[in-house]
């Protein structure tokens, strides 16, 4: 049982690990805190895997876990804003942690714009960028599909503004 969970975990990480890094990067600028967040999400995925019953795809399931962890992380960061300082590597023109994390230039530009959005909009754009449909986002958040549509359109418009400004 333990072996099969570990094997499943390795498969999930090989397939969706990069997505988890993108999730963490969207909600945490600080390199060390982001590394901790990725580890935290990975551990949560490992803990959640035995409860996976296949009602949704494994990707949707992993996104759900990552999303909740990021929400928790943001909540904690708001309560203790000590480590919210800008990432020093991002600021000094050197190859940033995003580049080192394997993000290409376009991804970095998108990430920078994404980070400027309020978290409520950011999560919607992020979920849509990861290929989730309106119905899946609605199920993940527990809000109506109409609500997702309205809010996502607003969020996309805000993202467009940020991208044009950049």
């Amino acid at each position: 049982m333990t072996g099969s969970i570990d094997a499943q975990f390795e498969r999930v990480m090989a397939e969706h690990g990069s997505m988890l890094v993108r999730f963490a990067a969207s909600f945490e600028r600080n390199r060390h805190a982001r590394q901790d967040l990725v580890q935290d999400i990975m551990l949560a995925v490992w803990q959640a895997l035995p409860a996976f019953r296949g009602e949704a795809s494994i990707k949707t399931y992993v996104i759900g876990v990552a999303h909740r962890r990021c929400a928790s992380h943001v909540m904690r960061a708001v309560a203790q804003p000590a480590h919210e300082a800008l990432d020093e590597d991002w600021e000094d023109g050197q190859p940033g942690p995003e580049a080192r994390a394997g993000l290409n230039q376009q991804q970095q530009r998108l990430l920078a714009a994404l980070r400027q959005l309020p978290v409520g909009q950011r999560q919607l754009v992020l979920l849509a960028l990861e290929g989730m449909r309106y119905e899946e986002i609605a199920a993940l958040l527990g809000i109506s599909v109409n609500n997702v549509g309205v809010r996502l359109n607003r969020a996309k418009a805000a993202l467009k503004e940020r991208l044009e400004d950049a």
Partner: protein
Amino acid sequence: MNDADEWSRLQDAWGGDTQAAMPDVAPMIARARRERRSMVWTIAGECLITVVSVAIVIENWPRLRADGLLGLWWALILVVGGVGSVGTFAIRIAGLREPTGASLRDWLLLRRRRARLGLRLAQLTRWTLVVLLPAPLVTATTARSAAAAAWGVAAMLLLLGGGWWWARRKTARMTTDIAEVDALAREWLDQPLTA
């Protein structure tokens, strides 16, 4: 951004070829596994201690009854101690599992329910401590020797003081938790949290 092509270009760029270096979480997983195993054994041990304690109380019931209210007090302390410690560890082990709520709303509701349960537990602890307030006095007056009285009173004061401190901290933490969950619901769901 309403342009579907532009959006799909962004999606392609976002999920494009990336080889992110994944951190090694094997030590964390091993630690979580060890922690879970040790907690299960601790809970089993505490259940065993509670059962043995209850058996001792039942066996000595006639003598305890002869001591009047003291017997009832001991029984109460045992029950509170047993239920409290097993409950605490059960909550901790539940915390080790990732909640499988279907949506962020369910998860937030679950967190708020847990926090409210914690608040109620703290309230219950306070009232139990109020009932136990005369315990040091009773222990001092019924002890067989001065040394036993001193130890007994010290233990009771520690129990009362510790319980009061824990209930205060728990209340503060749970109140903050509820406020944070509500704030998170407003920000992430854009609507208040209703069951």
